[in-house]
């Protein structure tokens, strides 16, 4: 079909391992309006999380195929983007063909990549890989998180790269032993993870405590770190919201956990019941609370950050991208000022601490562009 190059299918994205379908909440653009790549076009709700679908390419939104309220499988058609010249018949034909042949990946038995495990020292580390070749990128979550921290970003970053998201010790599906809870243990685990998978050099991206971990890897092994992406990173100043840390450790029920998790976002409606439930499921595993306690006592004693790594970073010849949500309630946005002078700093207005989720497409685009420039 000759028109195919000008006609782009807008489909239901896959956010995270267990997502098989999503409900279209609403369209954010009118049929017939012109959109640019990356524009937010539709709001989608899944059982775990709510998010925004962005345009994969520019053009005119010629057809809104899915209706608000409709549940669409991952990969299913939401709409059609095309240029003005494309005849209506061609679009109609494409929709008909798609509807006749589309098999949801979940039904076809294609669940996408699944987490794997690797032994690092005497710990088991769980990780998820997207992408087969190209430069290695390692995504490191924050305190209390896990590899799902990156569910909106990881796959999108994997075009031409091999992107790993790991669970730090004490988190997710990794061993619960965090040693003395120091950054050395966390950074040593990341370096050991690279050894175990034969990754000589990688771009590191860390969120919050994961940012401090990435910095610690870079200071210990500068030759192995191609770049640092530090998102709402710890390790840049003494202040931290101790109520979040203590509240997170103490929370054992949905009612206790919900207000703690809402501190992560500017838009509190992003904290779905399932998100709270998943967080509690991880946290209720034996050893997790103790691991978090040990980490908090070592890294954030008395509600202050014990280690500030910014000065060490200034002396390193490693490209740095800093990203922060202006409304961050966990780590103050002005810690971005402590980033070295050669760093690129992006402050995202109206978003909170988990900015890689709350402004997923924007953060993914910033990282993607930064990594492309570093690798060029």
């Amino acid at each position, binding site marked *: 079909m000759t028109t195919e190059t000008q006609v782009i299918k807008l489909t239901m994205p896959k956010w995270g391992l267990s997502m098989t379908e999503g409900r279209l909440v609403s369209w954010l653009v009118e049929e017939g309006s012109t959109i640019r790549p990356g524009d937010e076009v539709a709001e989608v709700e899944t059982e775990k999380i709510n998010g925004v679908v962005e345009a994969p390419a520019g053009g005119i939104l010629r057809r809104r195929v899915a209706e608000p309220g409709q549940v669409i499988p991952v990969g299913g058609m939401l709409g059609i983007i095309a240029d003005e010249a494309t005849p209506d018949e061609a679009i109609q034909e494409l929709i008909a063909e798609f509807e006749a042949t589309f098999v949801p990946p979940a039904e076809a038995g294609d669940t996408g990549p*699944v*987490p794997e*495990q690797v032994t690092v020292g005497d710990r088991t580390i*769980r990780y998820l890989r997207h992408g087969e070749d190209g430069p290695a990128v390692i995504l490191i979550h924050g305190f209390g998180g896990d590899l799902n921290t990156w569910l909106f970003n990881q796959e999108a970053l994997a075009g031409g790269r091999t992107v790993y998201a790991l669970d730090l010790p004490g988190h997710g*599906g990794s061993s*619960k032993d965090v040693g003395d809870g120091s950054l050395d243990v966390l950074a040593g685990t990341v370096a050991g993870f690279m050894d175990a998978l034969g990754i000589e050099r990688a771009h590191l991206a860390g969120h919050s405590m994961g940012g401090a971990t990435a910095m610690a890897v870079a200071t210990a092994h500068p030759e192995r770190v191609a770049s640092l992406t530090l998102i709402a990173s710890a390790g840049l100043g003494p202040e931290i919201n101790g109520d979040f840390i203590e509240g997170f450790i103490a929370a*054992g*029920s*949905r*009612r206790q956990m919900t207000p703690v998790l809402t501190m992560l976002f500017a838009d509190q409606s992003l904290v779905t*019941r399932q998100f709270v*439930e998943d967080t509690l*499921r991880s946290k*209720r*595993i*034996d*050893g997790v609370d103790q691991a978090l306690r040990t980490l908090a006592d070592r890294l954030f004693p008395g509600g202050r950050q014990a280690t500030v790594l910014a000065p060490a970073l200034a002396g390193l010849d490693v490209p740095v991208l800093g990203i922060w949500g202006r409304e961050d309630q966990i780590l103050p946005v002005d810690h971005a000022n402590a980033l070295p002078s050669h760093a690129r700093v992006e402050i995202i207005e109206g978003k909170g601490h988990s900015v890689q989720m709350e402004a997923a497409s924007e953060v993914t685009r910033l990282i993607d562009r930064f990594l492309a420039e570093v690798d060029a």
Partner: protein
Amino acid sequence: MARRLTFQQAINEALAQEMRRDPTVVLLGEDISGGAGSDGQQGDSWGGPLGVTKGLWTQFNDRVLDTPISESAFIGAAIGGAISGIRPVAELMFVDFMGVCFDQIFNQAAKFRYMFGGKAKTPVVIRTMYGAGIRAAAQHSQALYPIFTHIPGLKVVVPSNPYDAKGLLIQAIRDDDPVIFFEHKVLYTMEGDVPEESYTIPFGEAAYVREGDDVTIVALGRMVSMAQQAAETLAAEGIECEIVDPRTTSPLDTETIYESVEKTGRLVVVDEAYPRCGFASDVAALVAQDCFSALTAPIRMVTAPHAPVPFSPTLEDAFVPSPDRIAAAVREVVGKGAEVTA
């Protein structure tokens, strides 16, 4: 890394992990190590009548104790063991037989902490099978959790899926109060994702099984999957059900039930137990008392009839609340009150 286990395997794993973690955990019951080493072929015990404890005798040997067919004796022994410092998990085959040890449970175990001024603790778990559906007739098929829920001092757990079964049983074993743990025979083969690690689920926290705006269905144990089937059917008709599974009847998470009813304005309670002084009537009464102004339609209860469980397969199937009966009750309440959103 979702690992699938059956309900039965989840319970077995919870027992094994707690026995490994805590040397004071012991099991006792009828035939739980029966046949152990008897013919060299099976290589293990029967593991109880339905094989739930199979494999544990091999791993823990004399911590898995077979008892005579004398429920009042071994339940008494388990309770006595608990107040003297060990953590017994007794298996009382069918809850229907619990009647012969009511004094041990109601007057002794349930009262020790209270009557000894908080100085005694009774960390005993009594696991028991309940429910209809396996053609086992009137004396082996009852859902008697309301009787235990009635007694202050007992905690009562009725899990509906493998994940909850493991986490709630570990919580029960670690709990310092007597816990009656109900396992529905028909659920033993149900599969679900269960983490390999040990984990606990707190008592008194209901689970949201499904979210919806039109009607709240409160269901527990086997009735949760019945309610889910009904909700699927109803969703196709444009009725969105919210299903709340209390998981424990004592303590009861009224807050979550109320929160849901405040949103939907309608309540259907599904209960496999008898209707009089039962779980359904308890929840219905609490909601009527505390959320009356939120209700836009009368509360409906879907329960077994006030009759013994029949042996006739046809009658037994009609006895147990079915997805059809639940759906009919929901349609009745959404026909009243405020407009359905969909």
